[in-house]
């Protein structure tokens, strides 16, 4: 009761915080059909600066902090990234009208981490003066990459199994393919017979997925490489002056703009979701809480064993709850080409991210505070 009470108060308060209010503002003006546009160049540089700043913070922190206390959170992050994909495999993928590969891609995206969501969480924690390890942001890649890798590997193993049946099925289709129906509903899976025929041939070539290229690609993505650059500079260089004069002071303002974009983007993507099964909506609302709670639990273990701060637990929960919106999609698109991007990007951007930022952050913050109270 007392919990619910101050939790609700907190919740409303946080919706008023710059971060969340700009997110909501973005959704509202998009819904009202505003022509406002934040140029892509600006979005890119904002993402660069946010992640570089997070990296710098982490790096400078790592420089003077014993790494042993990072061990457990890192292990948990990796475990979570992998676990979340399998959760999707055995829940979402089982639902009617949900293709397995689409479900796996969605799981990968929700296992991966959203830089903007994490940035929002860190900012709100600061605003609330809740202590957390400065290196917490550095957990990002340890959850992000395993999730994407797992999703792509599992999906391709599954697809290779499907090959035979499909090929056979394609055979039947071929005879029909002259008829209009071929251009109809199925056409995405079974286009013009000659293309189909040849494609099958050249598809059955690549038998097994290699993991390293996927890892490499994610590490090379704009978001992660900005963050890793920041970490490296934080550890090996003395970026303090620019950090204090530039990256740190501008952080919140730039984040507010990005939140606005995320809100507008979320709304504009809602349309795409309509095209896919309703279950994606259910998943996108429930999954962030489930993932976050598991992470919160694991975080508490680290809290009581290795003294992982409660603020850190919140960060862990939020990055688990978050779903990648910028770096993940291209990786998955390339890794699981046959998965339908409208499904997984729609689910993540249109619902996953708003839920993670707007509901999960306040929720896990409230949770942590009640734990802190005891």
């Amino acid at each position, binding site marked *: 009761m007392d919990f619910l009470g101050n939790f609700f108060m907190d919740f409303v308060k946080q919706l008023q915080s710059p971060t969340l209010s700009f997110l909501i503002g973005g959704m509202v003006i998009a819904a009202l059909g505003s022509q406002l546009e934040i140029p892509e160049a600006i979005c890119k540089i904002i993402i660069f600066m946010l992640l570089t700043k997070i990296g710098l913070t982490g790096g400078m922190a790592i420089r003077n902090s014993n790494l042993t206390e990072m061990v457990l959170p890192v292990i948990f992050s990796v475990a979570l990234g992998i676990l979340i994909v399998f959760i999707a495999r055995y829940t979402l993928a089982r639902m009617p009208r949900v293709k397995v590969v689409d479900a796996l891609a969605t799981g990968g995206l929700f296992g991966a981490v959203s830089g903007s969501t994490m940035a929002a969480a860190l900012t709100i924690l600061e605003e609330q003066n809740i202590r957390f390890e400065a290196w917490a942001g550095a957990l990002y890649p340890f959850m992000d990459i395993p999730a994407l890798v797992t999703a792509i590997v599992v999906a391709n193993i599954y697809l290779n199994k499907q090959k035979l049946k499909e090929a056979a099925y394609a055979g039947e289709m071929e005879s029909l393919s002259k008829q209009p129906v071929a251009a109809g509903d199925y056409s995405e899976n079974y286009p013009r017979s000659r293309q189909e025929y040849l494609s099958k041939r050249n598809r059955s070539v690549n038998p097994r997925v290699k993991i390293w290229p996927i890892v490499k690609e994610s590490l090379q993505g704009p978001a992660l490489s900005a963050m890793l650059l920041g970490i490296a500079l934080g550890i090996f260089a003395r970026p303090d002056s620019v950090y204090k004069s530039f990256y740190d002071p501008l952080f919140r303002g730039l984040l507010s703009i990005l939140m606005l974009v995320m809100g507008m983007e979320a709304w504009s993507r809602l349309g795409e979701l309509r095209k896919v099964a309703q279950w994606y909506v259910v998943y996108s609302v429930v999954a962030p809480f489930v993932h976050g709670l598991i992470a919160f639990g694991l975080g508490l273990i680290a809290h009581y064993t290795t003294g992982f701060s409660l603020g850190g637990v919140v960060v862990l929960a939020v990055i688990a709850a978050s779903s990648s919106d*910028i770096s993940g999609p291209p990786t998955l698109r390339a890794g699981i080409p046959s998965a339908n991007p409208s499904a997984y990007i729609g689910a993540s951007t249109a619902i996953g991210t708003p839920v993670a930022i707007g509901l999960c952050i306040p929720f896990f913050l409230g949770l942590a505070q009640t734990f802190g109270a005891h």
Partner: protein
Amino acid sequence: MAKPAKKLVIITEKILLKKVAQIIEESGASGYTVLETGGKGSRNVRSSGQPSVSDTKANVKFEVLTPDRDLAEKIADQIGMQFFLDFAGMIYICDAEVLYGQSFCGPEGC
């Protein structure tokens, strides 16, 4: 000096930029021109999660001038086969005559 040629046009998702470029280079074409475009088709998916500002940037369009139709079709087939089951895309050819293009050789040789 005009040299009859075929102009091959490939429109597909931006994410395939590098892969398509590589196929063209390996095909032996003397070069290509690439543009950022937007578009709408049967699938038109936006395969990047990038906050999409103007949708006039979601696709790329390659233009390849080839001395003969065979090379054009070879490139078209390779790309069509490899990507167009899973990615949005379209390929067409037109006739053209090359007036200048030092890297370019018409059917009757340079």
